[in-house]
């Protein structure tokens, strides 16, 4: 999908190169439309990438849980310790990010 987005962005760039061929009165508006299209395409690509990241993480946890069930084994205290450490690390990073965001005007 990211390749498709990249190709569309290249297409927009190529179309921008043809702008001088347009009549002067339409050129500015067409340029604005292409610039806006490029901007929103980048935004969409960013949203898509972040959502995919969360989906990958949840899929990895699901794989872990399925493997435990298939093997008929319980979760070990060490695995639980690691999961709790990840929660604490993520929480600390979140709070630091929030503090920075709130301090930024």
């Amino acid at each position, binding site marked *: 999908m990211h390749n498709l987005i990249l190709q569309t962005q290249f297409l927009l760039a190529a179309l921008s190169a043809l702008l001088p061929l347009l009549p002067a009165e339409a050129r500015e508006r067409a340029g604005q439309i292409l610039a806006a299209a490029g901007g*929103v*395409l980048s935004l969409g690509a960013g949203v*898509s990438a972040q959502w995919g990241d969360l989906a990958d993480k949840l899929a990895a*946890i699901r794989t872990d849980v399925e493997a435990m069930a298939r093997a008929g084994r319980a979760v070990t205290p060490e695995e639980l310790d690691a*999961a709790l450490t990840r929660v604490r690390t*993520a929480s600390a990073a*979140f709070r630091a990010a929030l503090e920075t965001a709130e301090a930024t005007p």
Partner: protein
Amino acid sequence: MSHKTLRAIMLACALAIAPSCASLPRLENPIAIAQSVDARAYALMGTYAALIEEAADLVRAADTPPALKRALGSAERAATPAVEALGIAVIAYARARRDLDAAPAGDSASLAASFAIAARHLSDAILAAEQPIQALAALVRTDRS
């Protein structure tokens, strides 16, 4: 607003939404497939960590509305203590079970009682953690929908 302007806006919206919608993977629910109480706790903790990591990215993003950042902060402050309590409860449960499994048959009565208490605490901790985790998940999903 002219017809051409409207078409340009529609094109912009379509370009923004199409890649996201087309590539949005279905989100897994690891909690739903857990077959034991400790696996459920493990899935809850992992899901929460993934959500908080996502929420941190949202908070760092300049285009996230301040109201959403504040709501995420409130949700995290409510959920993290419950998830930490869940982590402590499930670790105690796993250790109590390991001790019980390792004990000779004749010496297991007190360990069985300890395990039953740990199991009850774990069930309570799961119930207490589920709602705040769902609240955070709803906020993260709201931003993505």
